[in-house]
């Protein structure tokens, strides 16, 4: 009987806590927030090698605002956190949402439209379009996805996606899981954009070529640089890092004539932001020359400002003439489970 009482009390406390939490909604507003711009972002942007620190320092010097970065992990986690705080937003800016997440952010109404004054003169039409044309997000950098090839390997470089299904590439490709990784989802979107409804057949044929599907970019790219496979999905800009830091042109981004899909990253003002003025000032600053010039050698992406001259390391290994493909994000979301079922069986 005692045991039953204990079980009952434990279950009751868990149940009542759950019910209490589901019913309560806290609201807290701080007056000191007026001088602080709280930015939800991801790990590599705010790290000591990322552009975040330099941009914040220069922004603080140029304005009277103080920047507070909050590390949420990755773009999806930024959105997840903002969504959970929808009724009581704590952030002013969400920085790091991309063209795959914008539809969800739009439908959940967590962002406020804002068009920076100089936007028309610096942001190319294609980037603006990729983020929905409504200025919920202001693009600050982008890159196409590409297969990075190790030129020291003994397999030939593929020329199109279809080539990857050939037996010569058996266990030679490292991909990332589309459920947990942005480049993983980018590759899947690429196959949907190229093969249309035939993407499922393509993935069936591709399966023997995949060595592993890592949960994140770091693990997959780490395996690639460790020499585990000669091909990895990454960004077209990735080889620039190796030229700059490792002084090698060993790794090349492969350009396929059929085109590539791209990731466009943007920053947007949170709906109900406690410091809207500071948030607008930061977005303006983010696409200024000063901030955009920091991006190439810290973020290893192409700055959104079309007037920025890229460093030499980019010119050597990053092809600038690849065709960009567009795709339907809803179709890609639906394709995730289809592809995982194909691979899992």
């Amino acid at each position, binding site marked *: 009987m005692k*045991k039953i009482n*204990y079980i009952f009390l434990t279950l009751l*406390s*868990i*149940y009542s*806590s*759950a019910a209490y*939490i*589901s019913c309560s909604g*806290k609201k*807290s507003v701080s007056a000191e927030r007026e001088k602080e711009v709280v930015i*939800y972002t991801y*790990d*590599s942007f705010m*790290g*000591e090698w990322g552009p975040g620190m330099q941009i914040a320092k220069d922004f603080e010097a140029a304005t009277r605002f103080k920047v507070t*970065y*909050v*590390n949420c*992990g990755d773009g*999806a*986690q930024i*959105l*997840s*956190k903002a969504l*959970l*705080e929808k009724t009581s937003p*704590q952030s002013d800016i969400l920085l790091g949402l991309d063209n795959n997440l914008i539809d*969800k952010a739009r439908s959940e109404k967590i962002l406020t439209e804002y068009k920076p004054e100089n936007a028309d003169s610096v942001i190319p039409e294609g980037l603006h379009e990729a983020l929905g044309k409504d200025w919920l997000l202001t693009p600050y950098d982008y890159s196409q996805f590409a297969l990075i090839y190790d030129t020291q390997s003994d397999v030939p470089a593929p020329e199109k996606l279809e080539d990857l299904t050939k037996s010569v590439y058996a*266990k030679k490709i490292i991909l990332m*899981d589309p*459920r*947990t990784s942005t480049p993983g989802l980018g590759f899947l979107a690429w196959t949907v954009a190229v093969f249309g409804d035939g993407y499922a057949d393509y993935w069936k044929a591709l399966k023997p070529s995949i*060595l*592993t*599907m*890592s*949960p*994140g970019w*770091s*693990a997959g*790219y*780490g*395996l690639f640089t*460790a*020499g*585990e496979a000669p091909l990895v999905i990454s960004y077209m800009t*990735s080889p620039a890092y*190796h030229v700059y*830091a*490792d*002084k090698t042109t060993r790794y090349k981004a492969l350009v396929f004539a059929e085109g590539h899909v791209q990731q466009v990253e943007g920053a947007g003002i949170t709906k109900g932001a406690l410091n809207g003025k500071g948030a607008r000032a930061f977005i303006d600053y983010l696409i200024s020359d000063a901030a955009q010039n920091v991006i190439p050698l810290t973020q290893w992406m192409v700055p959104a400002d079309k007037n920025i001259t890229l460093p030499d390391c980019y010119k050597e290994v990053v092809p600038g003439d690849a065709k960009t493909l567009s795709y339907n994000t809803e179709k890609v*979301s639906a394709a995730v489970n289809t*592809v*995982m*079922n*194909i*691979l*899992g*069986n």
Partner: protein
Amino acid sequence: MTNRIHAAEYSAVVCAGIVSVCIGVAFIFPLAASFQPLFNGKNGIAFNYSNLFRITAYTFKIALGSTLTAAAAGIPAAFFTANRSFPGRRFLLSLSAVPLCIPPLIIALGFVGTFGMNGALNTILMRILHLKNPPFTFLYSSAGVIIAQGFYNFPLVMAVVSTSWENLPVDERDAARMLGADERHIFFTVTIHQLSPAVAAACIPVFLYCFFSFMIVLLFGTIGGTTLEVEIYQAARTTLDFKTASVYALIETSFALAVISAYSKIKPAYAAESPASAHRYNRTKIGDALYESRSMKTAEYVSGILLGTVIVLFFLSPLAGILAGSITGKEGAYVFIKIIHSAGFRNALLGTLETAPFSALLCIITAFVYAWILRVRDPLGQNTLLQTLPMLPMAVSSVVMGYGMTLLVHHGTVPALIAAQAALAWPLAFRQIYASMCAIPQDTLDTAELLSDTPPDTLFRIVLPSCRESIISSFSFCFAVSMGDTTLPLVLSVPRFDTLALYTYRLASSYKFAASCACGTLLCILCILLFSLGKKHD
């Protein structure tokens, strides 16, 4: 003066009680919050039950295989560390917290460096045998996952079983010897039964760690394979379908609880046989034990060498692979100096030192309080529920806890992080502290209570000193857990705060793999140093 001491003792007891209650709350609220979306919304969830069964079965298969591997290496290793003296014994034992503190990404890179397609083993064999393709490709298969996870976790089994083996009562074995039983017979009829609770207690956490595993399963496992943890992650972080995430969290937690309940059902049958009587005997050299025949001595030598080889190959080599990964970069060994002098590393180290000691302290306070309550309320260890409750936090993965925290805490702070880490890790301390508390004879406690001025006197003069070693050891364990945690610091998103484990990941996500391995190596060294200090009195 005496009154002041008594007042201080009472205050300490009250404070410890309050801390324990707070840690309990810090566990229950996020757990409840992770199930909260089940109460919201009207939309139902379309479940594919055969899919769910397939995912659960795969998760279970991998976790079971890994646990059996960890036990197969850990139990024989525990025999040697508990009963024999040999060079490197202390070092081997000091590795027991390594699995808790090194991020899985770094462990994975270590295994790749040894057994990967371009790893040391394949490279050597391809050169010697003039092969075109790598001969060993097992790493990228279910076998690879089981080997990596099994050997990565074997020190945990070794540490727990070794401590228990050292403290086994010798009377029954001596009696069996006097009656003419040989060592093999004694092992299978006496020792193995005495050790069973410790083996089960060691294997359950390993099973649960593997059950909740994410990185290694996806990286090395079947392509397109999935686990319950991945499904929760996908629903909570990618598709933002919180209701589905809650359902998966409930299924995963219920399954883990079922495993724990099964353990607690089996446990009492053996527990009564192991009232840890703290008899210790001197360790002999390998093959030099008394009573052993010549063939037994030879068998001991051979198995010692075989086990040593397997441990070197599957555990120490991947660890060395991490070190090799850090110094084979462009900067060589200079990468360590560069890392140590970087502002980011210093901030991360400060952040770690700001949280890990306090988290470990809260863990041992909570564990001590609960262990004492259990010792007093259930001296015979027969109340299954009271015995099982401290294992409840082990049934909750950090993704589920993190998910609950995200729903609950909107403003991450360092104290919230410390409380959340302690709420998940205190059972690790509890197991060790409770075991040493059980070793105090009831007569001693009764006498102490009779002769003490106040009830807390017994606690401070008898119980606390008796548990000193296990408190130090469990402090190190919990310190390591907090040091290696990456989920909760990310989920709580504490502004201007960093830890070494997060820093290690950040290095890897910025193309700096050699630096990331170097940071992983430093984490590992810190952990080993801490453990060596913890085992100083051993």
